[in-house]
């Protein structure tokens, strides 16, 4: 009788020990279900869409109002790096820039510089030359048009 009772006492203890142990073994052997490669594969930055050539039109005479606003934007947001001559400061001087670049290229560079530095070979060449990423100065499409009008004025257009 004593023996049977004793058995009853021991077995529960035995099974508890087994469970707690198997739980820990499970931790060691179970494969991680996370596919790290899947989670970390390329997360491309999104920089918006490219402005196309036909979207920006030039006309003469220059819009005097745009030239004035463009100049004041230039003074706050561009002048720190771009001179109006052909001398390079941080970035290239602006003299002749409207002859050298297309209206859409200028617009994209002003409003979407990160996209340009990623995809445009001309922009990438300039980065290699200047070694400072042109900052995104948060200009709207309209503001960039005004700045470009000011660039045209600087290039002697009327």
């Amino acid at each position, binding site marked *: 009788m004593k*023996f049977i009772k004793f058995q009853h006492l021991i077995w529960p203890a035995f099974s508890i020990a087994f469970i707690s142990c198997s739980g*820990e073994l499970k931790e060691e052997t*179970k494969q991680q279900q996370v596919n790290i490669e899947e989670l*970390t594969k390329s997360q491309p930055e999104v920089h918006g869409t490219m402005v196309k050539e036909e979207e920006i039109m030039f006309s003469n005479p220059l819009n005097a109002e745009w030239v004035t606003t463009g100049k004041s934007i230039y003074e706050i947001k561009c002048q720190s790096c771009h001179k109006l001559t052909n001398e390079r400061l941080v970035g290239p001087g602006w003299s002749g820039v409207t002859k050298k670049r297309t209206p859409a290229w200028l617009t994209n560079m002003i409003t979407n510089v990160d996209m340009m530095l990623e995809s445009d070979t001309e922009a990438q060449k300039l980065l290699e030359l200047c070694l400072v990423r042109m900052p995104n100065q948060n200009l709207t499409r309209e503001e960039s048009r005004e700045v470009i009008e000011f660039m045209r004025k600087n290039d002697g257009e009327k």
Partner: protein
Amino acid sequence: MRTTKTILFSLTISLIMSLHQGCKPRKPGSVLIDGDAASKVYIAPGKYDEFYNFVSGGFNGQMSVYGLPSGRCLKIIPVFSVSPENGYGYSEETKQMLNTSHGFVPWDDLHHISLSQKNGEYDGRWAFGNGNNTPRIARVDLKTFRTAEIIEIPNTGGNHSSPFITENTEYIMASTRFSVPIGNKTDVPIGTYKENFKGTVSFISVDPNSGRMSIAFQLLLPGVNFDLARAGKGKSHGWFFLSCYNSEKANTLLEVNASQKDKDFIMAINWKKAEEYLKAGKGEKVSNVKYAHNVLDEKTHITHSEILTEVTVLDPKELPGIVYIIPCPKSPHGCDTDPTGEYIVASGKLAAVIPVFSFTKMQQAIANNTIEGDYDGFPVLKYEAVLHGEVQKPGLGPLHTEFDANGNAYTTMFVSSEIVKWNIEKLEVLDRVSTYYSPGHLCIPGGDTKKPWGKYVIAYNKITKDRYLPTGPELAQAAQLYDISGEKMKLLLDFPTIGEPHYANAIPAELISKNSKKIYRIEENENPYVSKGEAKAKVERKGNEVHVYMTSIRSHFVPDNIEGVKLGDNVYFHLTNLEQDWDVPHGFAVKGANNAEILTMPGETQTLKWTPDRVGVFPFYCTDFCSALHQEMSGYIRVSAQDANVPITYSTGQK
């Protein structure tokens, strides 16, 4: 028989032993975790966390922001303590934020966070925090993650029981932990505590548009210690419930003398009733107070500080229906309202049960006048009449309770180091899980609102010991994150926290991230010392003040050569960051500055004062790595003798 028994016994023991040897030996503090715990907290590189966790910094005086479930620290927001890292409290624009009636107070102890609410749910606009030591409430703007406003609380001696918020952010409630003598008679013997010391509870209104705070009224109350509180919600909206200890009104050795009675109390305050009295002109305007109110102007980036000298006080002793007392077992600490607003959970630090009070029963007891006496003239409701029930043997040292959306409460047990999950309606303990070690507060996303998101509970522990690699005598604090989506709580993550976190709130990320400000628009900058463009940069002398209007852009300052400063001058560098791109701050530091650096965000103007102490040429430079040519971003300022004949000149790029 006896031999058989012995053999079998030793056989069984050795079996158990051998099984144990097969297991990994447990290191101190190690614990069984599920195999999938790592995947539940793993946030892949470049991916975002699901929740923001706003965590009080305690004695560092700041508010920390963590991502959940990863536990990654995203930001420390300077609130009540100076931050030389970005110039908060040092720059001319920010130092007024730490002004008080005691002058400039550069440190405090931030204990509790309340996120702003609308209809009892977080709206993601502001985070409020309390300054415990020199009583203050701060409002952090969650668009900018900056301290936008701090108001000091007069007639208060330790602002612990605060800032607790009503369900539409009508009020922030702040009550005094230390009662003090107030009014015109403040120089009294400490031994006259019982006659001369008073407690106050302040209701600070919040403008629904601007967030601006102002003290609407204060309630004059007995000199007990107010500990923690919660607003009612839903059916109990219009009420506040505050835990109080030291009903003995002891003024020395509180550890013993404030623990004499079997019951202290929960004070129920009908603030809508108080509003009625206020409207009826029952408040007394008291003008023997001084308190600072500091507000950051978003357009100028400048903090303005004013000292106010008037507050409206209501005396509930003469205005019946505002205050009722609910007896509560020994030294209550946490006092938490469940999502329905029906139940008020009080945790007696020294009690063996958790009493849960019923708002409906409280209303009945008030209507039927079921009172058992009075405390300082306030009606004391009968314990049994207000009680929903007691959770029996929940654990040792119950402190704080948060809620999920399924009728369950989660209470921290400080002494037995665990979180206990229990059903509010049935008062049954459902699960318990260890924390490491001795948790204070806990947080469930939305756990203090009408609609908790649940999913996780975080324990903020007071003791760290062996959880991380040792770092000498002083350790980071330990927090643990548990999955509460199933019946059983599961430990997922252990992460260190900064300062000493007390209460915290967690909110779904998109409620904040969608509004997060990226830059200050330079066109909208109205700082009087702004330079909108390099052409506007200049240096001006006004008596012995030299004002440098300076710009920064990758990677140069204008001007970067300055002469004409003389010994005895105070130089103010007003730095405008001309960048308009996200995450391009520029720093500014100058040799020998007795304050700090300044970190200027895109489109912002910040000012560093510098008092040169010797003649010479001193370099200054940008402290925030901004571009490949960051090391070149520097300049010189020349300081001449007082009688020197050097005119003010300045330039950049002159050959």
